[in-house]
């Protein structure tokens, strides 16, 4: 059955192949139902029961769109490298992200049950984006103007950012709108930065705290997509606030200019708070600040958590993990004060 908000006759007018559409729609529905059932019943497929651990599969979408996802399988977990750089980059960085979560937080993939890490590269032609669709990673190639070709799967912080959306889906479930959406974005940036620092062996003061460094092409001419150290300074169009006084109260109205109520904009505030806490503590940021944020994300938040809820939860978690009035709790409290979320 064709299930769509747009009447089928209009779709036909617009030249959509109804049969292809129906197949894609059915497959998607089945996948969604399966994933939802697994989540709500806390079950694993029997077939997967004995196979926890790292399992990566990379597909080539062959420049096709949604109808061609995931595409042709080009590399499995035990296969050698291919001649396609995007395939190998997506494979390697999914592995580094898995290793970060497993070695630091003892988390077994996004669902903590060994979920297969599926990635499709070469999505559409010159596509200027990378995202997580609830089941898998999708990487465009970039058009070489706005984004450099191949930069999305090449950058570990981009890959870990996207896979962290999966972790958030399976834990806090923060809705992708306004403050919960900005928190969802911020946890992805935080874990993206930490996975990169872990892979490079960098301490908090050695790290650049940039997200997507070197990914912009000549049309943007910016250093990075975002800066956690100095939100708003990463590129000429960067509007990220670093403090609550500059919070952008945008509607979540489907207007692309409003970005789901500013999710990629207001994330600058919690991003900067994490940077302040991590650099105040010094050493490896994933060890203390990272652990406080991870426990908060996976155990203390819900779908509609607001900035204030994260402030309260991180301060409480810091006290539980490291004692009340410990350096850790003081650093977290001070960080939220500096971005205007605590008096």
């Amino acid at each position, binding site marked *: 059955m064709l299930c769509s*908000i747009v009447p089928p006759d*209009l*779709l036909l007018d617009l*030249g959509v192949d109804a049969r292809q559409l129906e197949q894609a729609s059915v497959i998607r529905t089945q996948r969604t139902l399966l994933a939802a059932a697994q989540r709500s019943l806390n079950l694993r497929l029997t077939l997967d029961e004995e196979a926890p651990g790292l399992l990566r599969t990379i597909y080539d979408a062959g420049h096709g769109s*949604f109808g061609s996802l995931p595409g042709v399988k080009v590399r499995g977990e035990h296969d050698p490298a291919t001649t396609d750089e995007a395939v190998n980059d997506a494979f390697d960085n999914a592995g580094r992200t898995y290793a970060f979560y497993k070695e630091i937080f003892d988390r077994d993939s996004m669902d903590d049950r060994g979920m297969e890490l599926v990635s499709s590269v070469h999505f559409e*032609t*010159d596509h200027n984006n990378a995202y997580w669709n609830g089941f898998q990673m999708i990487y465009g190639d970039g058009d070489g103007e*706005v984004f450099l070709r191949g930069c999305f799967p090449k950058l570990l912080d981009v890959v870990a950012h996207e896979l962290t959306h999966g972790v958030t889906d399976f834990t806090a479930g923060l809705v992708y709108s306004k403050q919960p959406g900005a928190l969802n974005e911020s946890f992805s940036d935080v874990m993206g930065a930490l996975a990169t620092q872990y892979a490079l062996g960098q301490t908090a003061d050695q790290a650049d705290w940039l997200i997507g460094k070197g990914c912009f092409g000549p049309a943007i001419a910016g250093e990075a997509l975002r800066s956690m150290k100095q939100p708003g300074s990463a590129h000429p169009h960067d509007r990220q606030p670093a403090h609550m006084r500059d919070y952008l109260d945008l509607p979540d109205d489907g207007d692309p200019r409003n*970005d789901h109520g500013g999710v990629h904009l207001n994330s600058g505030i919690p991003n900067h708070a994490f940077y302040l806490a991590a650099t105040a503590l010094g050493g490896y940021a994933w060890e203390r600040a990272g652990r406080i944020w991870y426990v908060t994300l996976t155990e203390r938040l819900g779908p509609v958590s607001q900035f204030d809820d994260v402030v309260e939860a991180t301060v409480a978690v810091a006290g539980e993990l490291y004692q009340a009035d410990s350096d850790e709790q003081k650093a977290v409290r001070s960080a939220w004060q500096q971005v205007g979320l605590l008096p």
Partner: protein
Amino acid sequence: MKVTVVQGGGFGGLVLTTTADTAAMPLDDAIRVREAARGFFDLPAVVGGPGHADQLLTEITVEDDEGKSHTVRFAQDERLGNLAALVRAAGRPGG
């Protein structure tokens, strides 16, 4: 016919705008835009669901030769085949 495409909400958090005017295009491109825009004025203002994290949000505005205009917003989705073709025909800011 003028087609304006605005995209935002993607991983980079950028807002990119492209405007295409069929009067200023080679004939075959102009035909492609007109074909892709067939049925556009009958679409509701919002089509499809809200989309996923970092998925591009797109707004297309088409102004016909009489100056009548219509705007449609959507999160890129497999059900929106020729809206994507219209974005491509107009010069594709984001994909």
